[in-house]
């Protein structure tokens, strides 16, 4: 069902864990499917993401996308991190099954939530960052076909 890359990131997730006193932390959940993802960021004074950790309660795809997302943002600037979309994460994982696309949104939103927290703590605004929604299922498109 999953690509080799997904399985690799699921079996050997990168950057699992917590960061003490993080620059920003965000927790997002998909109330529909009940999955929860938490992202910790350690951002230096130059706005570079020095470290990132995650914890995820969710399926194989959720774990793998969190893991991949942490790899993609690590060492990047805050602005670059904003550009890590769910599409980018999915591409980096060689794709996800259609029913699992929504899991990748969780990773994107978790980063945004952590960045929002960082911005609030530091009283700055990050260009292009919108206030994260707690329940990302509201943002999903893709109607289910009914038979």
């Amino acid at each position, binding site marked *: 069902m999953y690509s080799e890359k997904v*399985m690799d990131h*699921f*079996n050997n*997730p990168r950057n*699992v*864990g*917590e960061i003490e006193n993080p620059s920003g932390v965000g*927790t997002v959940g*998909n109330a*529909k*499917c*009940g*999955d*929860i*993802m*938490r992202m910790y960021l350690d951002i230096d004074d130059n706005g570079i993401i020095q470290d990132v950790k995650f*914890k*995820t*309660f*969710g*399926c*194989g795809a*959720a*774990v793998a996308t969190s893991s991949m997302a942490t790899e993609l943002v690590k060492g990047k600037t805050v602005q670059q991190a904003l550009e890590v979309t769910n599409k980018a994460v999915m591409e980096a994982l060689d794709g996800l099954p259609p*029913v699992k696309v*929504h*899991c990748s949104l969780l990773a994107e939103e978790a980063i945004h939530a952590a960045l929002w927290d960082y911005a609030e703590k530091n009283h700055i605004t990050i260009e292009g960052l919108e206030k994260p929604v707690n329940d990302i*299922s509201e943002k999903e498109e893709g109607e*289910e076909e009914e038979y």
Partner: protein
Amino acid sequence: MSKLIYLDNAATTQVYPEVLQEMLPYFSEVYSNPSAIYSFASESKKAVDKARTSVAELINAKTDEIYFTGGGSESDNWALKATADAYASKGKHIITSTIEHHAILHTCAYLEKKGFEITYVNVDENGKVKLDELEAAIRPDTILISIMTANNEIGTIQPVREIGRIAHEHGVLFHTDAVQAFGHIPIDVDEMNIDMLSASGHKINGPKGIGVMYIRKGVKILSFIHGGAQERKRRAGTLNVPGIVGIGKAAEIAKNTMAERSAKEISLRDHLIDRILTEIPYVRLNGDRHDRLPNNVNVCFRYIEGESMLILLDQAGVCASSGSACTSGSLDPSHVLLAIGLPHEIAHGSLRLTLSEKNTVEEIDFVVDELKKIIERLRSMSPLYEDFVKKQNK
């Protein structure tokens, strides 16, 4: 342990080699259509008759009350839609439960669109249908009660005998989806007042794509699949002779081995349940502890999600299933787990292990040992577990 440990027998089972053996001649040798007139047809007809008898004997039915279908889902659809059709003039109210299989529930949703009214009776925390609610739901226009014999997810065996009694006291037809129970626990359609019953070959080590519908004599249900005059004009389509022979043989074996087999399964099952409940923290057994299918174990591990568990179990060579939303393809966890009152996040961590008498204690022990590692690993990366631990430490 590199051999596959198959613990998903509620999903489907291995065709027993002796069942396959019995089927084999009917593919390429005795391939005749049993409806034909020549003597070559009488060989396959005889095989069909024999199978029908074996199936009838397993549930104490008469041979000509057994109809062969294309599977359990077809039987369920037939029972509901064609009863609705036939008895619509009497009434348009049907009673079922909240924990039925989708073959029942989605058919009910379809009937609702067609103007029927469905009452979904609730179950208690062990998954047993509330009999008082059931009885209170019966109305003058109720034409059918459909309650499953045993649940496919949590294994709870329903008080079918009492349901049948209630139905018949009120002059209402009683259908039971026995797909999980058929061949696994004793069923007597007469004693239990069952008017219609669905069963499926591949849940009892018979072939896939063959089902059974029991229809009590006198029940005026219509056809669901119209066409040729097969099955006493009630179910059209060239008879699937090898499939019928297969479900017949599987039914015969199931009858002969039931006592011994379920004793063995129950001992494996209880060993598995006991070890999980004592050795893994924050776990809950779903379904009734005693009125339970001999081969069913269903537990929820808190703070973790089912699909991830399944993938890691798979890597350890264990086949299992989960009612997690992530495995359902529908973003909702199992309706059965919700119906017994579990919140979403707990239903998420469900694991179903359904064994067979061919499993061994060694296999079960291996699974529990693996499971302990898997649960620990997944909890270590769970934000919910992190929150829980932090709260504890406060």
